[in-house]
């Protein structure tokens, strides 16, 4: 049980490549913090710095009340689950889980008890005498978790643990990890590039891009109030539609010259980007405008029915957008639709991509 505190953490490779550019994150005791971002955003580097597998160029990492910058991975009281599980191929499942405890000189009975308890929780009891290569992907994943659990560390670190599993198993393991983390109440840091995984698992969601933190918050807060166009397009699937606009005296002008009513939007002179989620659009039958909403013309490019809903792809003011429609859409390619965005669902970003 511990909190994790990152203060101005930087990582520079060689003399110039800055992978992590001053990150501040505070994770309270028992929380599950998810670091999410595209590949190369520094999320894995950050995790490895917390683990002690990567040196810290600048700043401090604090676990509980101890600054761990100069401690080795084994001394930080952390346990890590790796992307490829990193099970010891020549050891049985039992020994895989017991190895870390043996290295710490724990008495045999205590090791046995812990391994069997963890196996019980993860339903691995039948597999303790097997070797990793005799296990399925999901089972290996469980063993990797078991290896972390038996240590009862202060912090769990997960490095994209589900990315090697197929979609169905991934969904299942996601729920299991969440439940397990709740049950054990161990502070966790979880790295993923999958925004769905991030949204569903996180207590604290950290969206990273290019070595900096774009936004920290509760998943739904971030979804509803993205701090930048990057966060807006990264969180949510399909991503938020972003349409650049400029303002002149009488209203707003889209990229292709289409004029729309300003509807009281305060658009700065330098221009702005309006954003709206695909599910927040209303397709209107006539030409009437929704009170307090932004009415836009959409030219349909194609329709993707996925079952319970359909995605209508189209163009508004020269920008590609997508609209999520419940059930099946009757729209055809080249149809013109009138869509309305309620004002309270509109997101406004300045030309630098920051939320206004």
């Amino acid at each position, binding site marked *: 049980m511990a909190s994790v505190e990152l203060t101005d953490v930087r990582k520079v490779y060689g003399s110039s490549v800055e992978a992590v550019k001053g990150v501040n994150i505070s994770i309270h005791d028992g929380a599950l913090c998810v670091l999410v971002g595209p590949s190369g955003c520094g999320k894995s580097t950050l995790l490895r710095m917390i*683990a002690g597998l990567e040196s810290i160029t600048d700043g401090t990492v604090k676990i509980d009340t101890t600054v761990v910058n100069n401690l080795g991975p084994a001394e930080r009281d952390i346990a890590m689950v*790796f*992307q490829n*599980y*990193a099970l010891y*191929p020549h050891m049985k499942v039992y020994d895989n889980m017991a*190895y870390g405890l043996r*290295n710490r000189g724990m008495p045999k009975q205590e090791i046995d008890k812990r391994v069997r308890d963890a196996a019980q929780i993860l339903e691995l009891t039948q597999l303790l005498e097997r070797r990793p290569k005799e296990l399925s992907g999901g089972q290996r994943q469980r063993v990797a978790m078991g290896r972390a659990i038996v240590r009862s560390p202060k912090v769990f670190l997960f490095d994209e643990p589900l990315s090697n599993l197929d979609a169905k198993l991934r969904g299942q393991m996601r729920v299991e990890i969440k439940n397990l983390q709740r049950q054990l109440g161990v502070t966790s840091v979880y790295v993923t590039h999958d925004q769905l995984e991030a949204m569903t698992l996180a207590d604290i969601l950290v969206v990273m891009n290019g070595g900096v933190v774009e936004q920290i918050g509760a998943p739904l807060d971030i979804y509803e109030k993205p701090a930048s166009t990057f966060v807006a397009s990264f969180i949510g699937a399909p991503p938020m539609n972003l349409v650049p606009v400029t303002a002149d005296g009488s209203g707003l002008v889209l990229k292709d010259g289409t004029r729309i009513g300003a509807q009281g939007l305060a658009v700065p002179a330098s221009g702005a980007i309006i954003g709206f989620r695909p599910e927040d659009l209303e397709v209107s039958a006539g030409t009437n405008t929704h009170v307090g909403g932004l009415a836009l013309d959409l030219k349909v490019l194609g329709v993707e029915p996925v079952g319970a809903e359909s995605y209508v792809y189209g163009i508004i003011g020269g920008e590609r957008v997508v609209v999520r429609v419940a059930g099946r859409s009757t729209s055809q390619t080249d149809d013109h639709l009138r869509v309305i965005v309620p004002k309270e669902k509109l997101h406004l970003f300045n030309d630098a991509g920051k939320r206004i």
Partner: protein
Amino acid sequence: MIQNNPIGRIIAHIILIIGILIVAFPIYYTFVASTQTLQDIIRPPLSLLPGGHFWENYSSALFGGISKIGGVGVDRLLLNTLVMALGIAIGKIIISILSAYAIVFFRFPGRMFFFWFIFITLMLPVEVRILPTYKIMVDLGLIDTYTGLILPLMASATATLLFRQFFMTIPGELVEAARVDGAGPWRFFKDILLPLSKTNIAALFVILFIYGWTQYLWPLLMTNRNDMATIVIGLRKMIDFTDANTQWHLVMVTCILAIVPPILVVVLMQRWFVRGLVETEK
């Protein structure tokens, strides 16, 4: 086999059997000769069936002492060769696995320099550096010692490179998992690297044992005393230029005895050896 018709199969088997006969017959013939008296061997034709002097010939060769090589028995030659072959094989494996471990898993100044330095020694086989090495051995007073026989042949770039290649296939995450699990460098080596390398070690052991067993040039230089000679050297000394002076029945016995240990090593370690060559346990 690609096709499975009976005629093809029979032909294939016939070819294989002929091949085996060609390879095995000389060895069989040597064995036959080793069970005959000297007179029977010198007076052709030699029988194709083993004669009745098996125990007599083998015990006199093994324990009787052979006058041609100063009354030393083949048992002594076998012991010398065994010590040398084992020393070379085990020594090479220990040295090369440790140096490969250092080169792959540690960052230290001059790492690449040492790697290339080891690599370059590949270009200097025993024959090339034989005179300076011999001089050093003489200066150190190591002529006619096991150390002198073994030491110069122990350093091996080939084995180091082989282990290096294998170590580089070990995923970085495994190393990191071990670090998180609190395994220091020594524990990691002992608990993880060594067990994972055992098929490679077995394969190398077989190759290096045979390499050591069949060494000729180096033992020829290094040994003056008959009781320090290896079996290959002994064999050479037993053959005289004049046919009649050579105790052929004992030469044949020594030949057979020289073949047996490498065959035993290959057969006993075959399971490991083959596995090490074809698959890496991941």
